């Protein structure tokens, strides 16, 4: 696919590439004229011409070389500009593609690894598209021109014989090319692994510092750096070997010429002058040949990178939107019908035969022990993963028949670990919307009980929260994430995944009161919590145990029957946990 991208791009910019070929070709043709011109000039001096003709030659020399320089510069600029445009498009594609992939994909790839593609692989491709193309063109034209001169002015047989060793070049290329490509891939992979570790390590700096683990991390990093070093050295060995083989072949050509051509000259089958000229031409061939070697090198490296990028672009989103989506029903009830779910790489079902209905406009609490599948359940509701067909319904529409855009427009969500962007508080809160009035911002902040805090900051809504919100306290971060969900006023379903865990009971009470507003507006509210106090306004509570729904009913009723709910309730009201054991 990525290779097709290259061809498509070249086709799309065919005209410009044509101009590039013409300008660089022309410039080389002109460049070849310069020695001729100097020759003619020396000749004219030999014949004692006038001063004016000297000036004439000098001016012509200046003009011709100016033309060459400008044409060449233009060609070079154009091709490299295109390479950079292509680079930009490739980056755009990659980013746009990443946006279509589901969370599961990002669980399998670290940020450092993905970044390394942007940082190390894409520039490789650019190099081939820019410098590579321009060198190939130069080499091609120079090679052709020289070869033409050699064949025309000297003995054809000699030319052919001299070129025989050069036939080894394709042999060398086909032999070493795959090796070089493979090595280049290994280098890029080791770089990926290195940035992988660096990224993770930098992101966990607080952990590392608080456990005095700096030395261990450095050692780990050293391992990765050493690996990149060794792979790079191996690559250097291969590349230098390859780049020496080509001049070696030309050297052999030269030696053959010297001996065989000398013989021809001795036996007067060619003139001495022709022999001399031939050696000159042959030496002129060395440069384009070396350039070819260089380009082949670049191409091998970049095709390794291109394949790596291709792999990324080929990753298919695991979740597909239906071809003929049904619209999300208005004011839907949510029904789980015998939902059983297992993660692709986990064993055993995480959710086991969940069967329940959440009527529209009700407030439902979900409780359950750690790892019982609560977050999984709401992830499925957001269709971050695909539930089996026929298990989740909005009214009577299967979730799999709804376009995700439509689905998510109707649901608002506060994730358990509220990620914030390293921008301002205001940006983060207004994130779900394209345009937000200030009063809406204030209203959402008020509902999440964060307004007075924000107003206490010197720059208010413009306060920068730092990477992942690090400049805020845990509870402030959580409430910003909550305000972000609440600003999506058009959402009929609001889900809170353990979103009051980092706030004190006073703030909790205040927030719950504003959640009561949601209820009055007739929206469905789902609250996951370990603190039963957060569920005080719930109409019903679902209790999950190891993926099974064991209790579902009004809190009052649940209290009357023995079970997990009552156990939890007792623990949180009467004895403290320490005493409970």
């Amino acid at each position, binding site marked *: 696919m990525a290779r097709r991208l290259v061809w498509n791009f070249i086709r799309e910019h065919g005209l410009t590439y044509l101009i590039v070929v013409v300008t660089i070709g022309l410039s080389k043709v002109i460049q070849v004229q310069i020695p001729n011109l100097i020759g003619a000039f020396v000749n004219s001096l030999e014949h004692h011409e006038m001063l004016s003709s000297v000036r004439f030659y000098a001016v012509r020399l200046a003009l011709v070389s100016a033309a060459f320089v400008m044409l060449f510069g233009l060609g070079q600029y154009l091709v490299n500009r295109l390479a950079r445009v292509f680079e930009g498009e490739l980056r*755009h594609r990659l980013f746009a593609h990443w946006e279509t992939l589901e969370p599961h994909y990002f669980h399998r790839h670290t940020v450092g690894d993905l970044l390394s593609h942007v940082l190390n692989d894409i520039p490789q491709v650019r190099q081939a598209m820019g410098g590579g193309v321009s060198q190939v063109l130069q080499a091609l034209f120079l090679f052709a021109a020289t070869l033409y001169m050699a064949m025309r002015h000297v003995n054809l047989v000699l030319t052919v014989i001299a070129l025989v060793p050069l036939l080894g070049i394709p042999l060398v290329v086909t032999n070493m090319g795959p090796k070089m490509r493979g090595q280049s891939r290994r280098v890029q992979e080791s770089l990926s692994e290195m940035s992988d570790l660096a990224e993770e390590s930098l992101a966990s700096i607080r952990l590392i510092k608080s456990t005095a683990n700096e030395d261990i991390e450095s050692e780990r990093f050293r391992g990765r750096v050493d690996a990149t070093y060794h792979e790079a050295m191996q690559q250097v060995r291969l590349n230098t070997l390859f780049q020496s083989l080509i001049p070696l072949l030309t050297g052999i050509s030269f030696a053959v010429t010297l*001996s065989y051509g000398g013989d021809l000259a001795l036996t007067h089958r060619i003139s001495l002058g022709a022999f001399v000229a031939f050696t000159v031409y042959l030496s002129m061939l060395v440069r384009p040949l070396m350039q070819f070697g260089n380009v082949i090198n670049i191409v091998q490296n970049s095709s390794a990178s291109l394949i790596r990028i291709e792999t990324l672009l080929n990753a298919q989103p695991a979740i597909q939107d239906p071809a003929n989506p049904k619209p999300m029903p208005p004011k839907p009830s949510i029904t789980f019908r015998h939902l059983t779910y297992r993660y692709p790489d986990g064993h055993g079902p995480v959710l086991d035969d969940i069967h329940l209905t959440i009527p529209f406009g009700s407030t439902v609490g979900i409780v359950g022990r*750690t790892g019982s599948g609560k977050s999984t359940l709401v992830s499925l509701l957001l269709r971050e993963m695909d539930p089996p067909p026929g298990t989740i319904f909005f009214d009577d529409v299967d979730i799999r028949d709804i376009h995700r855009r439509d689905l998510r427009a109707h649901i608002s969500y506060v994730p358990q670990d509220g990620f914030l962007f390293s921008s301002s508080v205001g940006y983060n809160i207004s994130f779900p919307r394209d345009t937000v009035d200030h009063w809406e911002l204030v209203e959402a902040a008020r509902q999440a009980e964060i307004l007075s805090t924000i107003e206490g900051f010197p720059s208010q809504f413009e306060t920068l929260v730092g990477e992942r919100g690090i400049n805020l306290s845990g509870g402030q971060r959580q409430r910003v994430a909550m305000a972000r969900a609440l600003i999506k006023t058009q959402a009929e379903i609001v889900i809170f995944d353990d979103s009051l865990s980092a706030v004190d009971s006073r703030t909790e009470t205040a927030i719950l009161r504003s959640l009561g507003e949601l209820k009055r507006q007739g929206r469905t509210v789902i609250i996951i919590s370990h603190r039963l106090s957060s569920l005080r306004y719930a109409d019903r509570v679902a209790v999950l145990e190891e993926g099974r729904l064991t209790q579902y009913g009004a809190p009052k009723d649940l209290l009357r029957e023995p079970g997990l709910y009552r156990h939890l309730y007792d623990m949180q009201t009467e004895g403290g946990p320490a005493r409970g054991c």
Partner: protein
Amino acid sequence: MDVKGRTVAPSSRQSWRGLIRYAWPYRWRWLAIVGLVIIYNLTQVIQPDLVKIAIDRYLLVPHAHLRPLIELGLGYLAMTGLGLVANMMQTRWVAATGQAIVRQLRMELFRHIESLSLRYFETHDTGRLLTHISSDTTRISQFFTQFLLSLIRDGLTIVLVLAAMLWLNWRLGLLAATVIPIIVALSALFRPPLYRAYDRTRSRLSRLIAFVAENLTGMRITQIFHQEAKQLRAFDTLNTAYQEASINEFRWDVLFNRTFDLLGNLAVAFVAWIGGAAVLHRAIPLGVLYAFISYIQQFFAPINSLTQNWNTLQSSLISAERVSEVLATEPTLRDPPDPVHLPHIKGHVVFDHVSFAYQPDRPVLRNIVLDIPPGAFIGIAGETGAGKSTLISLMARFYDVTEGRILIDGIDIRAMAQQDLRRIVAVVQQEVYLYSGTVLDNIRLFRPEVSREAVIEAARLTGADEFIRRLPEGYDTWLTPRGANLSTGQRQFLAFARTIILNPQILVLDEATAHIDAISEAAVQAALMQVAKNRTTLVIAHRLSTIRDADQIAVLHQGAIVEQGTHHELVRRGGLYAEMVQKSQAPLSSYA
């Protein structure tokens, strides 16, 4: 503007000196490389000579023989071989040196960044730091592998050609040498715009990378709120800005290089003109002029190659500048010159009139006085944003107090080495950080000296063992980045197990059970109490049942301790704590 008003190239001498410092350990290798370059150049010079010998001695004579020609051919081949080997060795050594320098630089950078204080990370995002480690270092190495090599190789050639010209005819030689000041002047002229162009590209690139890094981490949020289009637009803005900068940079490159190309050709024309006139006036013989013209051409070939590498020089100088900026950043918190070692910790912690502010005149903690006897279990409660986590950060010396002091067993923590302090005080933080790696390694933090048994024992103690065993591969299950294949509570369990391994004398739990259900929490706490029997323990919790058995509970309000006492004392007092307790329970009881 992203140039931040820096319109002129900064002290490049400093950057240069920084660069040379890295090359210095390899000075002997560089010398060897110079030797190889000379050998290679000699073979290149001798090769045409061999052809000349062939012509002059063996072809132009009557009754010539083929044999010596074949010998010459073989000699030529030998020369080629020698030259190639020399060239290959030289390239390899240069590359090896470059790679060694990158390796060293990366290690140095990484170590240094890890040693910086937390403040630094509040203002420098991961994406940017990663660009330094991954790509700036590569660029710096190009200084050695490309620029320095070219400087050696081409510099040598330039000197030789210049010497030859002067030797041939000093007047014409001097005339030709006038191009040198022109070259210098042109380079000086081009330097500021080139520098600006490079600097802009670099800073735009790191901004782009930082954006991508952050958005990859937060992709889930973007998707859930369906803001893909908005983020893509933001990406495009940065991407286009970078692309433009990069194209602009290349435009300057081409302009710069072609200018020198043009200069070289004009110089040829100029010499032809002046020299031609001289020949006509019989001031110099024609042969000399011819030689001169080819010398001028030879003179500009290395100049062109040098200017082409001049770009590399510029970009590596900029990278060097960025890297040395990082390396020059001192950690804001420094260890004392002779830190105190505490052989035996009792765990007596005293906050002695501690005040603290993240930003000047916005105090977060005010005059905190707290005496924690050895082995005590202290609970800290308070509204969100009251400053509880900050208090802990001060104790682990992530920041230095603005006023007052913190003592452990009577010693000011600023008198200890930070690493020593953090081996004494272990904080289970509000956020859990996990690595992509096995569960085992995550618990033991990759420490090789911690055995598998110890890890399993720690997990069993905290109750994590139960769920770990149910994972597909038990302790060897590979955790995905940031532990995304675990539930949030399970992640907190791992953080607990970690702490057991660390075996600290002072244990601090900052909302460490927030995402854990009450039953598991009780088990965890019982285990921790057992482990921490004789240890000082500080527990921050919003779920007040967590700390009701504490020996003392301190209630923080807007940065000050407003109440202190046992659970029952505080409830009886009817203050803030009592209100919080009541708020967390009243609605519950109303069900019954």
